[in-house]
């Protein structure tokens, strides 16, 4: 067992993904050397994945409000009003690095994570999508990754019981060493039944729910923000194994518990599990929080505080409960066969205190863990624009039929049936437009309304011109929604880029954000949630800049939605637009 009070060396700091000046900032903030557990907590909170330190400055420029937006970025998912007291809750999130290392489990736990984000807010998931980018079809690893990722997305979503109604699949050599797996989920709730992560009240019990804590994915969140090299496959970090069965139980138990009025605040344990969820709940509520790790349900004996605070075991939640409802709450969880343990309480000290076996393992200023995270204005240069190619400079194909066949047969345009047939898109009995059209459409049960979902971006365009390419992605999402008969409502995004410490990559990122912002403002199409995935590089080679867009639209009368198939002989075909 690693002791908590070992000397913090520069190597240890580096292994935790912290730069020397970042470590200095920690020393200045707490006025002493951190314990090992504290160093782990800082590294989890301050890595790119949790702190958005490279992107925050730019994300703030995006339009995120609108008359229908009830909750924008900053919570587990965005919330948009769809009338009659109903709301749609949605978000998209990446699981790129884990999926490259272990395609099936990486993709599966990605789907699990995004579903948890949605039902944490009190919404029952009703639709999922997945945006996938793979390396060249003939690259030796591609087949293995495609097989595993698609089976993993299906394996989790099908078992959990949410219809997968859309997505994207692209191939390009720039993803050879770094595939992208972006998972989207949407759920339905009532406007007055939304749950947030802000803790309230002093001395309130903090409750741990779901599966037990194991040594899974310790340092997974840091891994998601580190570049790959040829050794990544050897490093073999512990990848989490998904358990969709437990997640389904967790969904039902959470929704049942929320009905009882017991829940004050709730947060799912995703990246850097217990640390991020506890700190966020406390910091948002301007409260301190004390955890007693002796109470945490563990899967393995002898787990240290460090391990428990950084474990990324899946299918877990943290809640702040009304104390008088504790017994009722624990009965619900027992019925569903899940762990339920009071592991701490809120305080008025604004400190994050972690105890284990009678010792204080960490005692940190809770607000500083989030608010004082480094924020960078990284230098950037606008990427050079490739010269336009005039149509006259390229030769017309000699044989148009041949050209058409090679287009239809190309990896990016060929049928997606092989993928889509591995996903259940009938479940719940509400799917009106299935994958294969412009957008998936799902009925809002108990009403005549419908919701439309689409995933779009053409990375090649973004590479050529980040600003225009990103505008195009928004415009395409907008068009796909309107094409099925929906009024576009709002957007979630998943910004996948290379190493932001390189000015040209940062330039792509900045250009993309500016393009997204401009297009969304022009269309009144606010961005209500999203995710940033940086450092998608292998051996210095970055992926194509890939700001994946998830668009959501509303149909007042779902029976009026239209698909892409011609209906009958003699139908008139009209071309609109220019």
């Amino acid at each position, binding site marked *: 067992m690693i002791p908590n009070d070992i000397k913090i060396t520069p190597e240890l700091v580096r292994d935790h993904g912290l730069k020397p000046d970042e470590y200095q900032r920690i020393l200045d903030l707490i006025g002493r050397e951190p314990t090992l557990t504290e160093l782990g907590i800082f590294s989890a909170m301050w890595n790119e994945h949790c702190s958005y330190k490279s992107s925050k400055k730019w994300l703030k420029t995006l339009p995120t409000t609108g008359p229908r937006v009830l909750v924008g970025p900053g919570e587990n998912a965005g919330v948009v009003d769809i009338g009659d007291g109903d709301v749609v809750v949605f978000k998209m999130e990446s699981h790129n690095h884990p999926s490259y290392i*272990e395609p099936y489990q990486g993709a599966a736990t990605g789907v699990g994570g995004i579903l948890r984000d949605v039902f944490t807010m009190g919404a029952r998931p009703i639709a999922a999508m997945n945006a996938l980018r793979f390396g060249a079809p003939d690259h030796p690893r591609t087949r293995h990754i495609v097989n595993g990722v698609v089976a993993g997305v299906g394996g989790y979503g099908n078992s959990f019981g949410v219809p997968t109604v859309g997505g994207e699949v692209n191939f390009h050599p720039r993803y050879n060493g770094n595939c992208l797996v972006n998972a989207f989920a949407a759920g339905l709730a009532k406007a007055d039944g939304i749950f947030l992560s802000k803790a309230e009240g002093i001395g309130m019990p903090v409750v741990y729910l779901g599966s037990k804590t194991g040594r*899974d994915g310790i340092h997974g969140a840091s891994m998601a923000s580190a570049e790959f090299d040829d050794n990544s496959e050897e490093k*073999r970090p512990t990848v989490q194994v998904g358990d969709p069965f437990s997640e389904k139980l967790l969904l039902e138990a959470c929704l049942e518990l929320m009905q009882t009025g017991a829940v004050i605040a709730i947060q799912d344990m995703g990246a850097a599990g217990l640390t991020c969820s506890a700190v966020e709940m406390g910091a948002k509520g301007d409260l301190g929080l004390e955890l007693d790790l002796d109470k945490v349900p563990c899967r393995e004996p002898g787990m240290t505080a460090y391990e428990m605070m950084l474990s990324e*075991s899946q299918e877990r939640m943290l809640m702040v409960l009304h104390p008088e409802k504790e017994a009722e709450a624990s009965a619900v969880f027992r019925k569903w066969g899940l762990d339920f343990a009071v592991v701490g309480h809120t305080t008025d000290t604004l400190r994050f205190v972690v105890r284990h076996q009678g010792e204080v393992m960490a005692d940190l200023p809770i607000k500083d863990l989030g608010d004082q995270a480094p924020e960078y204005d990284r230098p950037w240069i606008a990427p050079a624009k490739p010269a336009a190619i005039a149509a006259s400079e390229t030769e017309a194909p000699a044989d148009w039929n041949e050209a058409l066949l090679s287009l239809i047969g190309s990896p990016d345009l060929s049928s997606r049936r092989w993928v889509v047939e591995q996903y259940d898109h009938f479940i719940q009995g509400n799917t009106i437009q299935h994958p294969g059209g412009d957008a998936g459409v799902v009925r809002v049960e108990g009403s005549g309304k419908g919701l439309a979902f689409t995933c779009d971006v053409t990375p090649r365009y973004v590479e050529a011109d980040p600003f225009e390419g990103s505008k195009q992605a928004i415009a395409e999402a907008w068009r796909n929604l309107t094409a099925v008969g929906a009024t576009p409502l709002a957007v979630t995004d998943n910004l996948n880029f290379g190493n932001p410490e390189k000015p040209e990559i940062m330039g792509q990122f900045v250009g993309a954000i500016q393009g997204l912002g401009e297009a969304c403002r022009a269309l009144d199409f606010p961005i209500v949630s999203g995710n940033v995935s940086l450092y998608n590089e292998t051996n210095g080679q970055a992926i194509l800049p890939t700001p994946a867009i998830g668009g959501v639209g509303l149909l007042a009368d779902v029976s009026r939605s239209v698909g892409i198939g011609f209906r009958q002989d003699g139908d008139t075909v009209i071309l609109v637009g220019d």
Partner: protein
Amino acid sequence: MKARITVMLKNGVLDPQGKAIQGALSSLGFSGVEDVRQGKVIEIELATADADAARRDLDAMCQKLIANTVIETYRIELA
């Protein structure tokens, strides 16, 4: 020559199947079941009669295809 490869999840990796079986055994009234882990077994019939060559081949097969060494360990037995 017959070989048997057993593939188990590494210690510390969540084994939801094992957990579910353990739960089911206890609700069927079997007491004293302290732990259950589920794995795969692959029985291979090889043409060769050379045990060393077989072992080398089987090990390569495990590394390349049969086991996912990120989360699994494997064991080779020759009959």
